[in-house]
């Protein structure tokens, strides 16, 4: 059992750079997807946002609304993605280890998760900055006129 786990760990360590690369790539694609989604959503809702401004919402409040949307999307992604990632990771680990002729309990990367969640929120906040700014750049009358 101990030897199998060691072999598996060595295997993982050997593939670690490519695993990290895949993870970073997935994170980047997610961030770009979030950015694009927010930009499209903000553009799609510009009439609605202009109405909110006509009702008295100030520009910082509109930007905050876009930020909340970004955080909500990220939270939803985290709530779904983290358990799915953990389950998938465990399945892959077990398949890898059993392929070596033995079973080993996978470890849950609590520390990595503790960093990832706030990092995702930070990225979401950064990604919301440009769409938020775009949402308040024009006067409400300009945005209402194009509706």
């Amino acid at each position: 059992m101990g030897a199998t786990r060691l072999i598996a760990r060595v295997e993982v360590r050997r593939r670690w750079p490519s695993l990290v690369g895949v993870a970073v790539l997935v994170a980047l694609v997610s961030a770009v997807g979030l950015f694009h989604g927010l930009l499209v959503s903000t553009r799609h809702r510009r009439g609605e946002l202009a109405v909110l401004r006509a009702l008295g919402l100030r520009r910082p409040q509109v930007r905050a609304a876009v930020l909340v949307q970004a955080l909500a999307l990220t939270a939803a992604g985290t709530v779904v993605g983290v358990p799915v990632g953990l389950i998938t990771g465990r399945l892959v680990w077990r398949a890898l280890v059993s392929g070596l002729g033995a079973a080993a309990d996978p470890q849950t990367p609590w520390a990595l998760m503790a960093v990832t969640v706030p990092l995702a929120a930070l990225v979401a906040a950064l990604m919301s900055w440009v769409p938020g700014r775009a949402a308040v750049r024009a006067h409400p009358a300009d945005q209402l006129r194009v509706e």
Partner: protein
Amino acid sequence: MSVTTPDPVLQVRGLRRTFEAELAPVRALRGVDLDVATAEFVSVMGPSGCGKSTLLNLVGGLDLADEGEITLDGQVITGRDEDWLARMRRRHIGIVFQFFNLLEGMTVLENVVLPAMIAGARRKGAETRARDLLDLLGVGARADELPAVLSGGQRQRLAIARALANEPTLLLADEPTGALDSDGGREVLELFRRLHDDGQTIVMVTHSHEVASGADRIVRMRDGRIEPDGTRAAAPVAGPIDRGAVPSPVGRAESEARVTRAPGS
């Protein structure tokens, strides 16, 4: 001769606004002067492109003037930043748009509650007032439905309820009957008259003689200016609302509606 309005709640002086365009700048407003008295119902009438909606947007703080001064309820609102104007709109301005501009994802009630909550009201108090307004405007029974299920007239009544949520000093209406059929338009105009009878100050933009004739006073615009000649309103033309469908309120026959000179002209 200059026409002065006693106790003006709205004063506009020398208002100018030019929009950049590809071919040449569009001078939407070329020096507009206007007074509106407290509890007055004024129609701003003119052809498309004459600058009437631009005037309304500037008075509502939705756009910034290039020159001139607007005073609302004793406060100069020109030269302010957009966030100041947003705060001003919460308390002083209610806006009714031609195409309603309702928030389709919210219920009828939530559409009316929202402006009060933006202005800092507590939800319970805002809901009580919203329900009262919706009842008053005849859409109280639809409070928990989405705006999409309402007829055009009901949607505009909802938009009016929303505009009244914070008891605004001034109700601005931009072609409020423009997207409605005759019945819907008549409903909305009758509602405006009732609100006016209750003391609401209203400035309504329209290109229709019939609609304009429901107001106390008609201000005619052309080419970015208020027409200087104080002539009577022209005879009605064919439109979505016929004359018979828009009865004048008691004591305010249409023949009394007058076209007013711009102050200072």
